[in-house]
């Protein structure tokens, strides 16, 4: 059993994110950021899981995470992303988007940049507007894309005061999450079960492609793109279903997997080991999906080839795809779905697990029960 450490932090955690490692670094993750929600005062905090040695002889044991610094955040933290090593972008329920800067020398956070009314509603027939929650943010240095309850998409640049591009009324319903597909293209999910692809090269406010769940219009809450195969996308819905999509073909998901019993709040492919996928849900569970074939000792180079051949033996009909050695284990139309092994990572379930993030062998998640869980041995 993996060791997983819990710490109660006196605030409901809405988002947890690992700080990215410098390129080429051999270190493992050791700093993560959290955002809180639904408190009288909300905070963005930075935590370290590094060993403190004798520094905390009173009670702190190895594996426990320590608070580095925190800063007040106006409104609920709806989403949180690291822009680079030092900067964190936070989306607020007040419609404000803020870039926080971490000063490692004196361990403080400060506001680096702010777009106060990134998302807002316009009342019927009146110029006055009220704020709308910003629900999602995604960064790809130097660009920041935000989406909100107002159905608006904003494209910011870190060095620009104004939005570079705004798509008003991009969606008639609430946009719940956003991610980059390829550089000028983004992908959004909304509250009527649609997945839309937007190309910033195109003018106008029409998406370049709409994919949707059939019939039921189940809201989608989260989206993540396969790190290597950019056409493979995973989404999680209100009914707790995990959907895998191939955005190159069709307008419907490739597979629908029955998962959680309530809203799936986040889904993440493992960044360097994408046969592994992680999901968390309102029902208080955190799952690890393992779609790698059952031959774990293969090296990663042979891994890909090996899997292709096993895939072949299963379904000859997909010969058109054979030459692409990038057939994803997630897109396999193999009816034998039992190849995916699912493990539950949290011991007892109670309140919602709102967010999770994976980096290398480390996983962090935050819950409404005001606890942060960290494990450093995911694949042990």
């Amino acid at each position, binding site marked *: 059993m993996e060791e997983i450490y819990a710490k109660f932090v*006196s605030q409901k955690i809405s988002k947890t994110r690992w700080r990215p490692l410098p390129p080429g670094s051999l270190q493992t993750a050791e700093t993560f950021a959290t955002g809180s929600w639904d408190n009288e005062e909300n905070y963005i905090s930075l935590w370290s899981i590094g060993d403190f040695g004798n520094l905390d002889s*009173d009670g702190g044991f190895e594996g426990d995470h320590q608070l580095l610094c925190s800063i007040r955040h106006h409104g*609920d933290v709806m989403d949180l992303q690291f822009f680079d090593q030092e900067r964190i972008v936070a989306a607020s329920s007040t419609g404000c988007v803020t870039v926080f800067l971490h000063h490692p020398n004196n361990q403080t956070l400060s506001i680096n940049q702010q777009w106060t009314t990134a998302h807002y509603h316009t009342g019927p027939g009146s110029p006055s507007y009220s704020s709308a*929650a910003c629900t999602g943010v995604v960064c790809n240095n130097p660009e920041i894309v935000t989406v909100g*309850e107002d159905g608006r998409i904003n494209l910011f640049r870190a060095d620009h005061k104004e939005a570079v591009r705004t798509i008003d009324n991009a969606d*008639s319903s609430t946009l719940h999450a956003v991610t980059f597909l390829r550089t000028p293209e983004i992908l959004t999910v909304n*509250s009527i079960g*649609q997945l839309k692809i937007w190309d910033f090269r195109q003018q106008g406010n029409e998406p370049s492609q709409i994919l949707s769940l059939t019939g039921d*219009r189940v809201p989608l809450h989260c989206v993540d793109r396969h790190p290597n195969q950019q056409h493979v996308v995973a989404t999680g819905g209100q009914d707790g279903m995990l959907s895998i999509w191939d955005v190159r073909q069709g307008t419907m998901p490739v597979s629908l997997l029955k998962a959680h019993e309530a809203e799936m709040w986040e889904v993440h492919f493992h960044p360097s080991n994408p046969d592994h996928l992680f999901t968390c849900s*309102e029902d208080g569970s955190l799952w690890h999906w393992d779609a790698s074939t059952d031959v774990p000792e293969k090296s990663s180079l042979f891994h890909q080839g090996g899997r292709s051949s096993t895939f072949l033996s299963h379904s000859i009909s997909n010969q058109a795809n054979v030459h692409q050695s990038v057939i994803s284990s997630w897109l396999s139309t193999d009816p034998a779905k039992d190849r995916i092994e699912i493990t539950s990572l949290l011991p007892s379930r109670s309140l919602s697990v709102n967010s999770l993030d994976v980096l290398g062998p480390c996983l962090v998640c935050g819950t409404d029960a005001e606890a942060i869980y960290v494990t450093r041995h995911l694949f042990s």
Partner: protein
Amino acid sequence: MEELDGEPTVTLIPGVNSKKNQMCFDWGPGEMLVCETSFNKKEKSEMVPSCPFIYIIRKDVDVYSQILRKLFNESHGIFLGLQRIDEELTGKSRKSQLVRVSKNYRSVIRACMEEMHQVAIAAKDPANGRQFSSQVSILSAMELIWNLCEILFIEVAPAGPLLLHLLDWVRLHVCEVDSLSADVLGSENPSKHDSFWNLVTILVLQGRLDEARQMLSKEADASPASAGICRIMGDLMRTMPILSPGNTQTLTELELKWQHWHEECERYLQDSTFATSPHLESLLKIMLGDEAALLEQKELLSNWYHFLVTRLLYSNPTVKPIDLHYYAQSSLDLFLGGESSPEPLDNILLAAFEFDIHQVIKECSIALSNWWFVAHLTDLLDHCKLLQSHNLYFGSNMREFLLLEYASGLFAHPSLWQLGVDYFDYCPELGRVSLELHIERIPLNTEQKALKVLRICEQRQMTEQVRSICKILAMRAVRNNRLGSALSWSIRAKDAAFATLVSDRFLRDYCERGCFSDLDLIDNLGPAMMLSDRLTFLGKYREFHRMYGEKRFADAASLLLSLMTSRIAPRSFWMTLLTDALPLLEQKQVIFSAEQTYELMRCLEDLTSRRPVHGESDTEQLQDDDIETTKVEMLRLSLARNLARAIIREGSLEGS
């Protein structure tokens, strides 16, 4: 009405002169609103400028402590675990489960206490530090009471092991000895340390005889003169019979051995063996259970329950649970010696020793400032089947009453409300209605929060609340001009009336702008379209536009006609529909058949004949009427032309 158990405490509100002005108030679940009135008893006419403030008074302030929040959150998990303990489990396994749960609760209290202690030390402001320190002592008292209740009510230790548990209890809570011991042993010459004999005495008082013996050997090494008597004392300590958990000896055997040992000690006292060393002699008296000798060590004992346990250890080690209350009462009386009166904590512990659970809970409820302790303890004791018989004269039983109080306090807090939900779930009688009342009052600032509240309601089939939340969100979306969102929410609530209202807004917008907004939603309504007639019409009308756009004129035409003939389309919209038919009528090929054209004509005549006749008309009205008349004329012309073409075409087709 029962009599009051104590004087109610008076809370002064800063800034309000309650002598001069009358106040009014209103109850809330965890809070009270208070404000001054301008009502004056004596001079009625005089208008005094009254205080413009409304005060919020909270009764459950502890909920707002950052550190106690950890207690609430962590114990919530334990509480849930306890509720899920299999009812089928009986006997030993059930008892061990319950003891484990109790220990978990205590370890959470301890963790909180330690953190609070750290904060109290680190506090820069002395007033702040004092506040934290007082919290520490409250938490410490809670743990003390809980631990005793665990021993007496949950563990139900029998004679023999009972005393061992009580010793552990005292050792855990009178823990200054450890730092003292480190201090003494750390010094160069331990036996010459000022506190050396104090330390040895405390160790003996706590029954830690092995450690006391080691200390004595140090004294023996240092002063050869007293080495002999130190060794004798050491032997006495070593040979004191105690019940060890692994041992199989019976209580009678133990009592017999203990009697022998006691007589041996007695002999040494009579022989005045230790006369040369007053320290050793007083130790011997303690080991003989001499009350006067024990009371001399009042300061080292620090409290009466320590005195009680030490006294039992050296006079009646196999005390039966049933006799505890007698010893407890007399120990309290002896220890206080009439100098001071017992404090609330003393009364609570005394009630526990008397096995009066209800008194314990009652006293705790009065003494402690929050409901956490009594609610969780009562719930645990209820799971031990100790409270079944007791019913209150109001509400349901005591467990439920206390849980409801606690959960209501959580709901009054801006972010702990989620914890309260699970507590309400485990209140079989009034939990659900309480939840229904509380959940509607949660402010919904974001859709995400609303979704969480909705999930809670949907899981519990609280349809009324689901509908009301969706309606609130739909209303808000309409106010924010987010018609698509509004429609989604009313579909989720299955609220036909509201869906009709939103559909009307869509149609009105269409008439004004000539194009539809939010196509992504309307095009994908699916079966939800059937929710209301107007929504069906909206969906179908949009479908007509799509067919027209795709140049599927025949399909579009028959759909358009059917919208009117099936009466799905609101009459007010017929003119628009007929106008939409115009371009179809003017197409090169014949689209409407003769039959269909007749239908269209009937619709037009139907519409024009029922048009209300205005008695008075201003210029604008006249102008409008003008346009309308032209439209009707044009329609009639087109229809007639189309009919002619259709008849010719159909006739020629049949003929050929």
